[in-house]
Structure formats: C-alpha cells, structure tokens
C-alpha cells in the first residue's frame, strides 16, 4: 500500500517514515526523497498550481502502479500546492521494504512519474517583480520513460 496526499501545509518527513516503519516488522530498508524549493539568489517564492479534479487521482494511480511493481514495499507520497518559500519542502516520497533495492527503486520511480504525470505547474516570483512559469525538463521525461517496458 502506497498512500497519496495533497496538501498546502508542510509535512514532517521523520514522522511519516516512523508511521510507515511501525506498520510491519520485516522492514529493513527505508528510503526518503524530499524535493525542495531551491534558495536561488533573488527567488522570492514558488507557487504550485494544480488541477484539483485530477491531481490526487493521478497521484493515487502512480502510487498503485508502484505498489504493484514492488508488492513488498510500502510508502507515502505527499505533494504540496500553493505558495512556498525558498528552502521549503515541496514533495515527499517515503518508502520502506525488506529489500533495499526495492525501497530505492520504488522511491525513484514515484519521483520520476510525479515529475511527468502529476498535474502541477510551478511559477517563480523574483525579487525584481517578475514572474515566470518553470519549463518542463526533457531529462524528467527521459527519467520516467526508463520505467516503461521495452
């Protein structure tokens, strides 16, 4: 089971991992990914817009896909939306498994697909008053495609 949550408030990564680990006795490996707003010079804030009717359903579909690929692995994904300040966490993927390779692979897979399939858009506000929409990276699409069956 991999749970998905969408929220504006911050998350407590350590508490999320502790809750996950307490669920089973056979977990020897826990992996956690945290995505952060970079504290680039002059960046005032990052606002995440999303598609309310689709976002959580898409996150849950990605989570179910990961759970099917790595059935021994459990996890939680949390994605924030709204206005975030430099250094704040945006996204958390936390996984736990009896097998280290599975915990790593599931976390990596989940991030690659959140980057390319979850309907969020980032807009940067800069100190000079300008703002711009962040462009999608080709590398993210390539990272996601590696998980497709040949």
């Amino acid at each position, binding site marked *: 089971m991999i749970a998905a949550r969408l929220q504006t408030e911050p998350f407590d990564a350590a508490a999320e991992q502790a809750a996950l680990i307490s669920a089973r006795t056979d977990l020897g490996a826990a992996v956690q990914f945290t*995505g952060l707003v970079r504290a680039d010079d002059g960046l005032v804030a990052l606002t*995440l*817009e*999303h*598609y309310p*009717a*689709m976002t959580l*359903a*898409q996150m849950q579909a990605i989570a179910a896909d990961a759970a099917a690929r790595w059935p021994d692995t459990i996890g939680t994904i949390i*994605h924030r939306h709204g206005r975030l300040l430099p250094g704040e966490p*945006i*996204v958390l993927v936390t996984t736990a498994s009896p097998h280290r390779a599975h915990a790593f692979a599931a976390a990596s897979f989940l*991030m690659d697909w*959140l*980057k*390319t*399939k*979850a*309907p*969020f*858009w*980032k*807009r940067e506000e800069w100190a000079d008053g300008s703002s711009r*929409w*962040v*462009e*999608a990276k080709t590398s*993210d699409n390539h990272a996601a495609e590696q998980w497709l069956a040949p």
Partner: protein
Amino acid sequence: MVTLVYFAWVREMIGADSETLALPAEISTVAALLDWLATRSPGHAAALADRSCIRVAVDQDFATPTTPLGNPREIAIFPPVTGG
C-alpha cells in the same frame, strides 16, 4: 456542452480559467479541437501556437492529438507539468 479548463500560462494567455461550449459536431479528435479553439481569439491562438508545449486531459485522463473525443464532460488544456 463541454467544459474546457486551462492551467498555468495557457490559462493566462487565454485569459480564463474555464469556458463551457458546444463543440461543432465535426470535431472528433484532440488535434481537431485545438485547431478549432485556436480560431476563437488571439489569446487562444497565442496559447495554442506551439502544440509541442500543449498537453490535454479528457475527463481527467491524459490524451494525445489522435485521442477520439467521444462526449467528454471536461477537457483540460495545459503546459507540460512541472511538479515534484
């Protein structure tokens, strides 16, 4: 009637969060929908000018230019996603 919803710079360039329209009967694919939408205003035309930067979801499922439209209730049009 179908509700079109727009996000990010597509929303800003079109100048609306959403619009509810009757689609002409001959529009049967995502690509045809975008072609027709682009004629509705200069803002629509500008937003949809570079189709390589346009993504579409039909009733909350990602679609491609050749996806048949059927009778959707909601079609979302937006740039490539940048979450995570």
